[in-house]
């Protein structure tokens, strides 16, 4: 059977990674061991990580507690922006090729 064709310039929209989420850099889902040919919606969340069954989920209370503690940090610092954290899950194309970043 011929595998489904992938349009030129196609980019995988899925999250992958073992320790932290980042964009999948594969050029085709065909034969991908992470999403199993596009069958798995979120390969990052589905990864087995020893006894950490709740690896990517945090209680609201945890987030609230931590957020409350760092509120002071954000009041006094303008260094961190939303974009800084978001680059992890939607990294720039140049990230992989930038030798200074790796």
């Amino acid at each position, binding site marked *: 059977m011929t595998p489904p064709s992938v349009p030129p310039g196609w980019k995988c929209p899925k999250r*992958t*990674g*073992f*320790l*932290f*989420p*980042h964009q999948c850099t594969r050029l085709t889902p065909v034969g991908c061991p992470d999403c199993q040919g596009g069958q798995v919606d979120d390969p990052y969340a589905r990864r087995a*990580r*020893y*006894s*950490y069954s709740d*690896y*990517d989920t*945090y209680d609201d*209370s*945890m*987030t609230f*507690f*931590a*957020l*409350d*503690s*760092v*509120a002071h*940090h*954000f009041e006094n610092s303008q*260094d*961190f*922006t*939303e974009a*800084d*954290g*978001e*680059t*992890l899950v939607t*990294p720039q194309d140049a*990230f*992989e*090729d930038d*030798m200074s*970043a*790796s």
Partner: protein
Amino acid sequence: MPLNQQQLEKEGIYEAKAPLAALLADLDQIARFTEIAAARKKRHAKIGGFTMLGGLVLAFILTPLGVLAIVVGLGWWIYSFFAGGKLVKHPVRVGVATERLKMIQEDAGAKAQFSLKLALATKPVKLRDEAWSHRKNGKQEFFEEDWFALQGQLLDGTYLNDDVKELLRKRHFTNPRGKSKTKTRTQYLVNVRLSYPASVYADARPAEKALHGQIKVGTGAMLRAVRVNEKAIVLKAVVSQDREIATTMGMLSVGAYRILNLARKVAVKGANK
């Protein structure tokens, strides 16, 4: 890069700075060298054993020749203990390094340079010796051997720094029957340090407090330290079995990143406020 088997057998240290894929290819080559050296060692032991056996039979017919064969066989058998050099002393170490590198490979850039130092066998450094009062003529010695060190930057900008030390304790004493005895115990100290970028994770300390230090390790390991500051997370564990080392490094990294991933989420929410 082709490796020199003889040099590895003699020196027992592999050191390189390269992308993970290249380091893994080298480790694969070292694992093959180890297999070859182990097979050679086994072959020498067999030849020595059979020569001694043949000499024993021959000694009944032609005593001088039989004795000569036994001596040669004994020499050959003793030589087999040294054949293979340092490659065969700790074969599990190559497996530990390979497992650790594969574990982090998908979170590292394909071109990212990692420094790896793997000592297949080096002389342990004596830390101290002291009297051991629990037994007659008791004395204990402590040794340390650094055999694994890995440094490099992951895709999120975090610097990973792993190291493994073998800790050896030797106890010498005289038992109630007057015989001298030596007992050894080996443990492994596993350190994982993650120096994270503030631009991505801000400060991880509140996230660590929110998670109440939920770092898990396997049954064969004991968590010794968790230190989190505004720049890094440092985790230490003591492992009693060498086959648990790679798993422990993995569990420590996953535990640390559970803190960092919460820190990142909190940082994003904080920036949105």
